[in-house]
């Protein structure tokens, strides 16, 4: 299976590339629509601000949307998960790729420290293939100041940081998954999820 990590010119893709190689994936980093078209599955990484990311991503929106509409698996990570939403309020209201209906909002000002940074536990709602063998309550690594707000049916796992927010989302077809945390930085558990993605999606 050929995985393409979509490179839209921001952020550091080495960590996710290394982690996917570690679990045995055939990975390539690319921003070529033809490569995206040919790939068996896509990874949408994300570091930085929503608006910049969407600006850089703009020309790829169509090809990525078409690919997932045809059932191609896609894993969005952190900002890459947020980009799947309809819109985000980060830095003013901006449109997302709009694969999963929802809005990205900031953690409310309160006693909570923002960014939400560190290891927090998953409240698993749906046993999607990505979570095969992953126990409820498993800890994963988060770094973010915004989170997605969506409908119940798109939520596969939640996380409690004073407020409860979606940690994993999935579309109705099940081929698109987004994780607010970084599986590539979540130790053995994160690697297991990536292995699940590589082995159970896109066949």
């Amino acid at each position, binding site marked *: 299976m050929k995985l393409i990590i979509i490179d839209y010119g921001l*952020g*550091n893709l*080495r*960590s996710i590339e*290394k*982690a996917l190689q*570690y679990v045995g994936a055939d990975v390539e980093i690319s921003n070529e629509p033809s490569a995206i078209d040919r790939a068996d599955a896509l990874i949408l990484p994300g*570091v*930085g*601000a929503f608006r910049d990311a969407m600006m850089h991503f703009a020309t790829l929106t169509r090809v990525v949307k078409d690919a997932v509409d045809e059932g191609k698996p896609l894993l969005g990570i952190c900002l890459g998960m947020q980009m799947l939403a309809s819109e985000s309020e980060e830095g003013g209201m901006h449109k997302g790729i709009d694969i999963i209906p929802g809005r990205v909002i900031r953690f409310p000002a309160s006693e909570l*420290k*923002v*960014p*939400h*940074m*560190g*290891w*927090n*536990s998953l409240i698993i709602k749906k046993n999607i293939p990505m979570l095969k063998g992953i126990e409820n309550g498993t*800890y994963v*690594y988060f*770094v*973010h*100041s915004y989170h997605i707000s969506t409908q119940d049916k798109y939520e596969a796992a939640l996380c*409690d*940081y004073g407020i409860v927010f979606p940690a994993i989302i999935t579309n109705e077809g099940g081929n698109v998954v987004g994780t607010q945390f970084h599986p*590539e*930085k*979540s*130790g*053995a558990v*994160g*690697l297991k999820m990536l292995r699940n993605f590589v082995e159970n999606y896109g066949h």
Partner: protein
Amino acid sequence: MLTKRIIPCLDVTLDKKGGCVVKGIEFVNLREAGDPVWLAKKYNEQGADELVFLDITASHERRGTMIDVIERTADEVFIPLTVGGGISSTDAIRNILRAGADKVSINTAAVKSPDFVKEAADIFGSQCIVTAIDCRRNPNIKDNKDKTLIELEDGNIAWYEVVIYGGRTPTSLDAVQWAQRVEKLGSGEILLTSMDRDGTKDGYDLPITRALSEGLDIPVIASGGAGNIEHMYDAFTSGKADAALAASIFHFGEYTIGQAKEYLRNRGVPVRV
């Protein structure tokens, strides 16, 4: 629930032959196994929440070795990795992140040019810019009415002065005010080291740790002085730290990370086990 983080710190330098050394530990016979990389893997297996590499020589010659160590660690250890020591340009940050680090810590360069924090945060994102603040207690409060006065364990009052160049140079900056400033400039985290405690094994400096944690919205990593696990418990409870960094108590096998976490969990501190 968000857990408190335990972070082993590897102070990496060169030995006379140009080999890699973690402070106090010569990797003479472990060269093939990968020197600091070996220690990083061990801590990862024990359940460390993150790793910090501090380049304590930070010479030009050193830099290439450090990039190599970061790359070899990032190839095998999939938890967050912070690298610090002598970082003063966005090019240096870019190279370190490309090698596989997730965050960099900036210290002296931030004090000399606060705009560097903003520039770095704008380019790379707040989440990967840690500001390291080294500070020392200053008992002279008479001439320093504008500083943040903090009550010490013995009831005396002091303010905490930021020091740079490895603690050798006082700056007259107030540690709490400085931390609040770098937070505004975009720093995503503070790595706080009390020079009064560093290397003493007497415990973390709780008054300044608490003052910073209460005065900031971003996480605070307590550092300097850990001599046993109870000190970590104190840092998280009385010091309100979000993470605790330690070096020697782990390097010399006094405790494993797992033992530290077990102890903390039994005393009601949320940790990832």
